[in-house]
């Protein structure tokens, strides 16, 4: 990860090999997922329960793509970032359950 910047020679070569292609693929993927989500709502033809599922699904996939490619989480040496985000997500998940079921008005 950050050792890239100092041990630049070898690491930079690895990045050159990778090139921008996978990032553009990630971008196109994100774009498509966004479009599907907006289309599902804009069309207004699908029932709301199913739309929710599509929306959440698209968002989760897109976030996964961005985390993995753009934020380099798929690269080596990201054990603690991954653990950090996963644990954060678990906490958030319990809170979303709380907000959906145990808060009433």
């Amino acid at each position, binding site marked *: 990860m950050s050792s890239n910047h100092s041990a630049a020679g070898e690491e930079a070569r690895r990045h050159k090999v990778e090139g921008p292609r996978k990032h553009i693929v990630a971008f196109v993927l994100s774009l498509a997922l966004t479009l599907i989500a907006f289309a599902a709502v804009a069309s207004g033809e699908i029932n709301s329960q199913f739309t929710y599922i599509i929306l959440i699904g698209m968002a989760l996939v897109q976030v996964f793509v961005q985390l993995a490619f753009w934020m380099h989480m798929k690269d080596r040496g990201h054990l603690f970032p991954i653990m950090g985000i996963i644990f*954060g997500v678990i906490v958030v998940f*319990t809170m979303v359950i709380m907000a959906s079921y145990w808060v009433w*008005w």
Partner: protein
Amino acid sequence: MAAHAHKVKRYRGLMDWLTTVDHKKIGILYLMAGGLFFLVGGLEAVMIRIQLIKPMNDFVGADTFNELITMHGTTMIFLAAMPLLFALMNAVIPLQIGARDVAFPFLNSLGFWTFFFGGVLLNISWFAGNVPDAGWTSYVPLAGPTYNSGHGVDYYVLGLQIAGIGTLLGGINFMATIINMRAPGMSFMRMPMFTWTIFITSALIVFAFPVLTVGLVALMFDRLFQANFFETANGGSSVLWEHVFWVFGHPEVYILILPAFGIISEVVSTFARKRLFGYSSMVFATVLIAFLGFMVWAHHMFTTGLGPVANGLFSIATMLIAVPTGVKIFNWLFTLWGGSICFTAASLFAIGFIPTFVMGGVTGVMLAVAPADYQYHDSYFVVAHFHYVIVGGLVFGIFSGLHYWWPKMFGRMLNEGLGKLTFWTFFIGFHLTFFVQHFLGLLGMPRRVWTYLPNQDFDTMNLVSTIGAFLMGVGTICFLINVVVTSAKARNAKADAWEDGRSLEWTIPSPPPEYNFKQLPLVRGYDAWWKEKMEGKSAMTPAEPPGPIHMPSPSILPFIMSVGLFIAGFGFMYDKLYLAIGGIAVTLICMFFRSVFDDHGFHIEEDEQEKGVHA
């Protein structure tokens, strides 16, 4: 090489303390500030107990009493217990992992000063005449704008918000330190237990404090900008506050107690001259407790009316925490088993911790039984329970740790006689105060009561409890006397002050030089220093040749940034927009300077390294 080093900026006296980025000095700052707030909170506790010494007492008024309980709880948890833990963390962790400093020395200093100014802001409320009075939990609507229109709760919200920034920074800092700064050879499973618990505690801080931040922001918006998060009249939900508070609040309990577990593990194994029994299961239990700690918050809300499904789930989840906790207790007992136990003040506190904490733990399981909790909840039984855990657990742990690491922090051994006197008065006082409170709760005395009617069978036990509180006060004074007496003496502590030290902090002089380790040590196993000693060596094998040591420069910026936030806090509270913007601008400008002007630090050359080091 030296050509690149910049002229050393050395400050003296007060300026040295304001600008220091040395973790050892920051540890001492935390100790002094946390100790000060501990005394303030203790004074509040004594006043609470005096008020409750007899039925229908009028030592303090009802309003004042609610202010006292609120400030006592808030101060003790956020401004005394956590800073005292941070004091020990700062003083010990880099030494235990064989590092020259923490990962972010600048942030470390910033964390201290934001905590300090947050605490000062909170306590200024006493002088402003607007003291928070809705309990340390600040349940809405009582803490909301409608029923609490003064500035009291604003002090709570902003003070905690600012202090919380400091705590969060500390958590991130220590996680990064432990992950990245360990000495060569110190794998995760060779880390001392205290380091492990601090690692997990830091992780809990990182994931729990943002929840509090959001809760406080929402409450602040409700109070200052007419938002409706918790205003039921406009669609808000008061139950939401309870959830948010306890999603933070329960992990907070483990943030407090896990470091105590770590201290006890170190002290017990040192003074029994034995390796910690079941090290790997201890590590696993710590991780498990932390994880489960996030899944049980609603057991504070059994009577809120969440319904049987939630109550059942959270009951069972809560009970499960007893299993890893039990593992820890038995591991300590079996560390002592077969050992050679030496009774110093430090080990007395650690040994006193074990049965006391067990009692706090079992009442915890009792509280987890939701239907029975309908009876215990918000009664004195709960007060007894959490004081058993927090005082009997955490404060005993802190006392134990202070007696244990005092020589390392200050180079002087605390007086053993006074230390033992501290233990016995505090220990007996503690049990007198809180044991009877279990029964007060069961007999029907709700908590947070300003006074109580006569003829309810509460009188005798309340009297006993108050007497105990005084005894605890005496214990604390004994400790203070000990500190004063000790600091008047010459430095007398050896590097391995207790002679049975097991981890790396005991391989370097007491107190350690600025740079801690002249050469970073090579770690060859768990209990690194003990291992070398047992093999007949008198020093660690160095992992690097001696050379100039790079140090970060001191900086006044953290102090100024915190002052900026402090001023902004007042600006928000009293609707002075220019103050709020000005204060935040000060902070941002400091951040700008920090980013633009690189800190190149300075070097301590080899020939300077021995200067001022006490062998």
